[in-house]
Each structure stands twice: as structure tokens, then as C-alpha cells.
């Protein structure tokens, strides 16, 4: 029982980090259909932003979150306006362009900040552990979990219950038609991309205290994020949540029973098999054709 609970909690924690990383991608890829290879670099910039705000301005992690969200969001908006908007009907070119942007961001960071590994201090109030039904778990990981759930709810609300969300869904379905109704698709696309990028920035800021911060850190995150989104079903934000926690639990349990190397391999095999038999992912949102 103890073992079971410990594993469920571990899985939830891994899942919450996966969801955190994938949420921004779910918006950009899922809603806009843009395959953004620079997603990992947005995560990386979020982590470096937090590090820099702490090192140069003495700001704590929590207060940095706001700055990082808007900072990386602004950068995302610039990328969308400057590059991606010209490539909407050319998905292959988009992949190449965003990948190039990712490489450039990596090298810019390497040249300006340096390639040394960095770290970000955890907020002091969250350094301890808390006990859940007798199992000790890091308070910071609990905080990340709660934060991610809140972020998800906010995103869901934004997409489904606000005017902006309705306009976005309209633009995604038919941008010419929605333009006829007075919606400016450019504005909507720009803001959506900025929001997705901002979420990636937040993810970077939040994983920084648990992992190392380096210019190349984004590479592994972008892969994880794509797995989560593709498995969950593109366009389904609930699917993203389900698949993040499914992958988290699977990785955690297999890692505990064997080891992380095997867990990683088995999870990948699992994803391949699932995608083979269910190419649309676990969840499909119904869109009227």
C-alpha cells in the first residue's frame, strides 16, 4: 500500500512536469497546427530568465514567474509575427524555420551567458517535504502539481469560455470566414502563439530548481512535449492532460520496478504501438467538418 501510494505520487509528479512542458505546445500545435521545434528553447529561455532575474536583480522564483511569462510570451509573439505568419500553408518550412530559430536561441544563450550549467534556488518556503497519507513528498513537487492544475484550468477556461477562445476556435476552423465576421486572424494567431510560448517559459522557470539549466536543455523537453501532445490527441487539451499523467505513471512505475533506462524504452515502445493503432491519439475532439 505504502509502495503503491509512493508510486502514484511519483507518477503524478513526473506527469505534472510533462504536462507543464506540453501545455504550451498543445496550444501552439494543437490549436494552431504549427509544429514549433523551438518549443524546447522557449522552455530553456524561461529557465535562464529565472536564473538571470535571480542573479542580477535578486528576484525570487515566484515573482520571476510573471516577468518570465510575459517576456517569453513577447518573444513568441515576435517569432509568430516575424517568421511563422508567412509560413502558415507550408508546414515543412515551418518545421525548418522554427528549428533554425531554436538553434539560434541556443547559440545566442551560449555566446552571451556561457555554456556552464546553472541552477535556480528553490523558494525557501518550499524546500521541505510534506506528508501525504504517511508518504513524504517534496513540497516543491506538490507546488508544481497544484500550479500546473491551476494553469490547465485557466487555459481551458480561456479556450472555451472567453471571447478570445471562441474567436480562436473560429479562426482555426476557417480563418477567411471568421475574417468576414470581423475577427482579425493575425491578431488571434499572434496572441495564441505568445500565450503558448509564455506557458513554455513558465515551464522552464518551474523545472529549473529541480534540473540543471544549460543552453541545450530544451532538446529533451521538446521531444517529451511532442510525445505527450501526439499521444493525447492533437486538438484535445484534455487528451494532453490524460496522456501526461499516463506517461508519468508509466515512467514512474516502470522506473521503480526495473530502471529508468528500461522505463524510457518501454514507454517509447508503448507510444509507438498506441499511435500505430490509434493515429488520432487517445482523445479526439469533435470538430464539425
Amino acid at each position, binding site marked *: 500500500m505504502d509502495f503503491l501510494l509512493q508510486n502514484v505520487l*511519483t507518477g503524478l509528479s513526473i506527469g505534472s512536469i510533462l504536462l507543464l512542458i506540453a501545455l504550451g505546445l498543445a496550444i501552439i500545435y494543437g490549436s494552431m497546427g504549427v509544429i514549433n521545434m523551438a518549443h524546447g528553447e522557449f522552455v530553456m529561455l524561461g529557465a535562464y530568465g529565472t536564473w538571470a532575474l535571480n542573479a542580477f536583480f535578486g528576484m525570487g522564483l515566484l515573482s520571476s514567474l510573471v516577468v518570465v511569462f510575459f517576456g517569453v510570451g513577447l518573444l513568441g509573439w515576435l517569432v509568430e509575427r516575424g517568421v511563422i505568419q508567412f509560413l502558415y500553408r507550408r508546414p515543412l518550412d515551418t518545421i525548418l524555420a522554427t528549428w533554425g530559430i531554436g538553434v539560434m536561441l541556443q547559440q545566442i544563450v551560449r555566446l552571451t551567458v556561457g555554456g556552464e550549467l546553472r*541552477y535556480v534556488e528553490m523558494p525557501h518556503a518550499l524546500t521541505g517535504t510534506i506528508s501525504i497519507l504517511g508518504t513524504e513528498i517534496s513540497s516543491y513537487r506538490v507546488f508544481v502539481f497544484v500550479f500546473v492544475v491551476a494553469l490547465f484550468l485557466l487555459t481551458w477556461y480561456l479556450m472555451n469560455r472567453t471571447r478570445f477562445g471562441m474567436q480562436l476556435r473560429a479562426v482555426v476552423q476557417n480563418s477567411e470566414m471568421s475574417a468576414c465576421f470581423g475577427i482579425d486572424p493575425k491578431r488571434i494567431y499572434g496572441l495564441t502563439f505568445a500565450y503558448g510560448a509564455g506557458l513554455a517559459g513558465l515551464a522552464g522557470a518551474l523545472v529549473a530548481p529541480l*534540473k540543471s539549466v544549460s543552453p541545450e536543455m530544451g532538446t529533451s523537453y521538446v521531444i517529451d512535449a511532442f510525445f505527450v501532445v501526439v499521444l493525447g490527441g492533437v486538438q484535445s487539451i484534455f487528451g494532453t492532460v490524460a496522456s501526461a499523467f499516463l506517461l508519468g505513471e508509466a515512467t*514512474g512505475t516502470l522506473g*521503480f520496478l526495473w530502471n529508468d533506462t528500461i522505463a*524510457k524504452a518501454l514507454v517509447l515502445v508503448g507510444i509507438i504501438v498506441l499511435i500505430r493503432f490509434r493515429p488520432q491519439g487517445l482523445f479526439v475532439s469533435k470538430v464539425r467538418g
Partner: protein
Amino acid sequence: MVMKRRDFIRGTAALGAVSTIAAPQLWFKNSGLARAQNGEIKVGVLFSLTGTTGIIEESLNKATILAIEEINAAGGINGMQIVPVVEDPASDPATFAEKARKLVMSDGCVSVFGSYTSASRKAVLPVFEKRENLYWYPTLYEGRECSKNVIYTGAVPNQQQDEFIPWLVQNFGKKFFLIGSNYIYPQEENNYCKKLLEGLGAEVVNEEYVPLGHSEFSSVISKIKSTEPNVIFSTVVGDSVVALHRQYLAAGLDPAKMPMASLTTSENEVAAMGGEAAAGHFTSAPYFMVHKSPENEKFVSAYQARWGADKVTHFVSEPSYFQVYLFKQAVEKLAASDITPPTIREAVKGAEMIAPQGKIRIEKDNLHTWLWPKIAVAKADGQFEVLVDSKEWLAPDPYAAYPDQKCVEAGLTNI
């Protein structure tokens, strides 16, 4: 420490060995031998300045250059200046081999100082063996190599573990949790560790390898909690070290009860993870920046004066520095007309000098180095505190985990 892809490189090295046999040695016999000429001694400096291991290798380049500059400023070797030829192999083993060929064949260097990863050393090995040249390798590594063309100035497993493991058992207990990155170096270190533990009647509660670059240690930490070891013996390398320490800290585990004992955490890694996450964990190595000796004070102050007051020295940069002095000492014994790699090798056999860590010697049998094991604990300020300073230097035994093999002057022999 990143010494990846060695398995793959072993294959490549084997290919190199095959081509050695295929190409008649006669072709190179005299014309190919590098030689110091025109009153200057050319040496290669082959550390990556860019790429994944660029940061750490840059510090090795700096230590090497510092030593060369010091020697030249003091009049060179028997009046001849050392001329360093610096190349950047960009953290790529294939580029290492290419640059090594250039240094040895077109520049005519009589020795090359270089490499951090085992993969890169394995990649250049065929070049040095084929051309009868000499490679000076400063990094601690997994042993199990017996080349006549490499001078190994870093520690091998027995020199880091012989004192460390019994000390850990005595101070913390007999339950060990072995965790490492998934490649050859941690596996060889763990092989030797298990051997020592067996002799001490200690047990291994779990042995586990994570993929290189792994950064999610939740399930490892669950396992640590459920197996309750006394010591976590870690050979995790690269950015995974940072993630492991920070998640250990977040999980509220206590270094006083269940410390991590590492062979690879130096001042560099501590700076990357932050003193808070490093504090209370142990490292065994022949050198720490805080080591007290006149030679080390001189080394540290010269290093910081040359490269910046915030720079740290560590257990790979120290051998990078002293091996240049060993080279000087060997060349000094030779006539100006007879400075070639084989004569340097013969002159360096059994050579002794006072290095920053203490008096060291090159073992004539296996060309590895007698070193001074030390055990230290990391502190929150980012430095170490040396707890155990070995009273005797320790002979290198690159085949310590393989009692039926021994590296002697004639080569590798089976006993």
C-alpha cells in the same frame, strides 16, 4: 565527467588497429618519427574549446597553457622554448582523431596533451600508436587500458576507491546503493566497487544506470527511500549530477544519514548545482582546490592571476598542469638532437616530481601515475573540506578489477 560512446569508439579503435596491421610499419619507421628541431620543442594541446564538453576542457587547456608559459618564462627546457600548437576538436571524437593526425604528422609535435572523455582518447589512440608518438591524458578514467603511447596522469579506480569504500563502510554502514550514468565508466567503477564491498562483507541493495542526460530522478529517489541504503555511491555524470543532487535536496533526504559518495563531483560540478545541494556529500580524488601545500598555493594563485580570480582548479586541471612539468623534466635529460616521443617516454618512466597534490611518480610498467588519494566533503560555500589525507601514495593498477590481467612494461599479460 562525460566519457560517452566508448563502446562505439572501441569498435572504431579496433578498426584503427586493423588498419595498422594493413599498412606496413616500415613506411614510417624513420621518416615519420617526430623530432624537436631548430631550438624549439613543438607540442600539441588538444582540448575541446567548443561543443558539449567545451566548458570543462577549456579549463584543462588553460592549465596546460599556464604551465607552458611558466616554463618558457623561466628559460624553457635547456634553452629551448616549448611551442604549443592549440587545436579545438569541438567535443567530437572523429575531429579529435583528425586534429591528432595533423598535430603528429604535419606539425611534427613530439607530444600532445589532451582529451577529457574516454571516447576521445580511444579515438586518437591509433594515431599515436601508429606514429610512435606520445599522448598525455590528465583525466581520471575507468582503467583497463595498457598503451605504450599514453602517459596517464589521472586516477584509475583503485586509486579513488581503495581508501574511500572502507571509510564509507566504517562511517556510514554496509548497505550501498550504486547509481551511475549508462556507459562504460560507471560500470567499470561499479565492478571494482562491488569487488571491494564483497571483501568487506557489505551489500549492494541496488545497482542502477540512468541514460546520459537523464534529469528525472523521481523513481530513483523512491527506490532510495524504499531500500534505505547507508551510502549512495554515485557515478552519474554531466548535467544529470545537478538534477540528482537538486532532487535529492527537494526530497528532503539527509546527507548525514545517507550521503552520496562520488568519484566525479569536483569543484566544477559543485558550482553548477549550488553549494546548498552539494553540502554534506563526499568525493574521493587525488586533488582538491583547498589542498594545503606550497605547490598548490602557487598553482592556484598563478592560475587565477592568469585566467581570472573567480576560476577554480579541480582534479582534472591539476594533472593537466603538472604533466607539462613532467614532460619538461623528461626532455631536460635528453640531448637536443635526440628529443623524440620514444626517448621522452623512456625518460619519463619512473620520473618523480612534487605536484600540487604531493609527490607523484610515473610507474614504469604501465605509464600511469602514483597519486595521493583524498576524501573530502563538499561545503555550502562551493569548496571541499579534506577529511582524509592519505599517508602514502598509491600505485596505479589499471586492471585492479581483473586480477588475471596485468599491465607491464612489455604490454598486457595474462597471469
